[in-house]
């Protein structure tokens, strides 16, 4: 086989891949676009319910992970929650995988974002799908209809600032 032809074909494939990635907004490589609306309703948790859970003894509290923007996390986040990377990017999903990989699959995990209205959120769908694919059986997605400010902070629920 002519190796020149093979090299040219491989180069074309690589360039097509780069063009596709470049077309997506943002610097980080975008992951799959999966709407938050694909998360089953039974797996949603309402803000008031989570806020109540956070007052339980530590053993009953879920691990709460923010899967959106770090800047918004620094501005304000759920007290006790951790930053786990934006679900919309491959880097973000990798960060999420690293955070949970050593946990038992029965671990109670709540993910949240609130960067945008629920139906427009780019992060929740991919993050939920990733945890589900990893085998986690107790994952809930915090339903923030409008955004984190309106549906959590303004309600007076447990919030903190900083890294």
């Amino acid at each position, binding site marked *: 086989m002519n190796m020149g032809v093979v090299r040219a074909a491989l180069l074309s494939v690589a360039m097509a891949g780069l063009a596709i990635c470049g077309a997506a*907004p*943002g*610097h*980080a490589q975008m992951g799959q676009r999966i709407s938050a609306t694909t998360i089953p309703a039974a797996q949603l948790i309402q803000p008031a319910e989570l806020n109540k859970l956070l007052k339980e003894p530590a053993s009953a509290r879920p691990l709460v992970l923010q899967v959106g*923007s*770090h*800047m*918004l996390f*620094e*501005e*304000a986040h759920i007290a006790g929650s951790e930053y786990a990377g*934006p679900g*919309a990017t491959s880097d973000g999903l990798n960060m999420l995988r690293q955070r949970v990989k050593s946990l038992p699959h029965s671990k109670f995990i709540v993910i949240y974002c*609130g*960067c*945008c*209205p629920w139906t*427009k959120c*780019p*992060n929740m769908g991919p993050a939920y799908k990733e945890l589900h694919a990893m085998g986690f059986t107790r994952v809930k997605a915090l339903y923030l209809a*409008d*955004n*984190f*400010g*309106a549906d959590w*902070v*303004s309600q007076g629920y447990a919030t903190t*600032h900083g890294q």
Partner: protein
Amino acid sequence: MRRPTDNSSKLATQLANAARRSLLAALLLACGPAGAQARSPQALVHKPAPQFVRHDLKGQPLSLARLRGKVVLLNFWATWCGPCLTEMPEFMAWQRQFAAQGLQVVGISMDDDAAAARKLATKLKVDYPIAMGDPDLGRRYGGVLGLPLTFLIDRKGEVRAVYQGVSNLNAIQTEIRTLLTER
């Protein structure tokens, strides 16, 4: 036995001190939005817009104070925010349409990465200044904890309207037209 005059004097002093404290508290409240944190974006309506000075993505200085006398549409956005990207072409059109009447659109990117904002602004050919935001600026604007978030600021530097989430662009344009008629 205490003299009545002593009690009166003491009371007068206490009242004067209380009045001073009230005046100080009122002054702090009045000046609050410029330097402190608002409770929510909506709490800034009819308050002075928090000032900021920074460089835009092209390295040009950008100062809100220097835009006094113009109507400012201050839009917090990010590359990962779908509704933001829908609004931006409309904001560009308004900038061109109303520039002569005194409109200035300013974008503040809440991306974690300036390169992402720069890349997208170039791709969309955004022709109004965009600067990077930070958590402190977000907090001073009442918490930029959901995008898009847009403030309309009048020629005197006062916040007149706040739009959060997927907004009615016709309503924003109507308000802009109203503010542009004010001198």
